[in-house]
């Protein structure tokens, strides 16, 4: 079966590409070829979408997301890892836009790539020793983890394929009457023209309490981060004093 071959090829490719101390060009090339084969297998087993344009756009953005996601985990330098992750975020934002979630696509770019990723890069620059550290050039149990990832991916894609093959399983029973009575173009209200306004209405209507809790969570994280920094420095001083005292004794 194509899917099993693709999953196996993906695992082998990750195993070959993960950092392992010495650089081996043949292993790298084989890993790249196997990765391309795995992606081709997944593309072949994917369902055909309605239009050619939609299909091409979805293919491009999802390939960008997956390939740069893989590059994130196999790159040795953590700075390059973060930059590949930014590209992967761009691909994910494209997938979200294809799925019709305009607000989330833009929010992913602004919040993740604009804020969280810049924070990661700042910390990397603060804490990066010059050159590639030894722990960036080796990885823990690459074979076992690649097999674990392959098992997870195989099971997920198998169950997703089975799910999508059954036409009755994933229709929404509660929404079906509304969809039948409504105009064919307006079957799904997540694709309406004013969908961002509707999303806001839903967020601040049905989920108002959760919004409040999320605000409290942000405040607690902010105060917690400051408190950890302040008390951590005091604890570091204590440690140094203890060490100095122990050495004197």
């Amino acid at each position, binding site marked *: 079966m194509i899917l099993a071959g693709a999953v196996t090829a993906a695992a082998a490719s*990750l195993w070959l590409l993960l950092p392992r*101390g010495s650089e081996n060009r043949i292993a790298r090339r084989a890993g790249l070829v196997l990765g391309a084969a795995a992606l081709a297998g*997944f593309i072949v087993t*994917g*369902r055909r*979408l*309605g239009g050619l344009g939609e299909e091409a756009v*979805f293919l491009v953005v*999802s390939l960008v*997301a997956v390939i740069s*996601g893989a590059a*994130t*985990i196999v790159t040795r330098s953590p*700075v390059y*890892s*973060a930059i590949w992750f930014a590209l*992967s975020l761009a691909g994910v934002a494209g997938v979200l836009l294809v799925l019709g*979630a305009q607000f989330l696509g833009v*929010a992913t770019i602004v919040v*993740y790539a604009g*804020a*969280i990723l810049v924070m*990661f890069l700042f*910390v990397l620059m*603060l*804490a990066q*020793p*010059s*050159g590639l*550290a*030894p*722990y*960036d050039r*080796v*990885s*823990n*149990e690459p074979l076992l983890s690649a097999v674990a*990832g*392959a098992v*997870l991916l195989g099971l*997920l894609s198998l169950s*997703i394929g089975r*799910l*999508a093959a059954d036409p009755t399983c*994933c229709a*929404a029973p509660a*929404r079906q009457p509304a969809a039948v009575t409504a105009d064919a173009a307006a079957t*799904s*209200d*997540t*694709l309406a023209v004013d969908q961002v306004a*509707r*999303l806001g209405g*839903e*967020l601040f209507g049905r989920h108002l309490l959760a919004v409040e809790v999320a605000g409290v969570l*942000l405040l607690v*994280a*902010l105060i917690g981060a400051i408190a*950890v*920094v302040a008390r951590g420095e005091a604890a570091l001083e204590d440690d140094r004093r203890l060490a100095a005292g122990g050495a004197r004794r």
Partner: protein
Amino acid sequence: MNPLLAAASTALLHNALIVGAMLFALGLVGILTRRNLIVMFLCAELMLQGISVSLVAWSRHHGDFGGQVLVIFVLTVAACEAAVALVFVLQAFARTGRLDAAAWQGLREATLARTVDHALPASDASPPQWPRLSTAGVLPPGADHDSLEREHV
């Protein structure tokens, strides 16, 4: 619903769920193998991206905003998590001088074996060739050439 439209919707759902599963599996492999603490957090964020894609795919399929609202909360929690986690990473770096997860292996279970680092060969990759630009203008006073150049990022 129009059966053709339903089939297209199911196909989009299938493909988007597969993409989400791939991102999640990649993040899982990364968080299991990599030893740099910051790269491990990047992999956790990659897993969150996979979840977001799956949630929005179901939201699109059912024509319901629930999945998208959940993704907004995922974004919020990811921001909080990144802030707190990076503070911990910085503290860990201040204590050990390394961004290595194995620097904290003293916290492992008593029955687990210790991670032993084998001697690494010197990096056999030739150092990157940065372009040499011809000097233009005057050198600012007091600027030391060596302090401006780093071999690696």
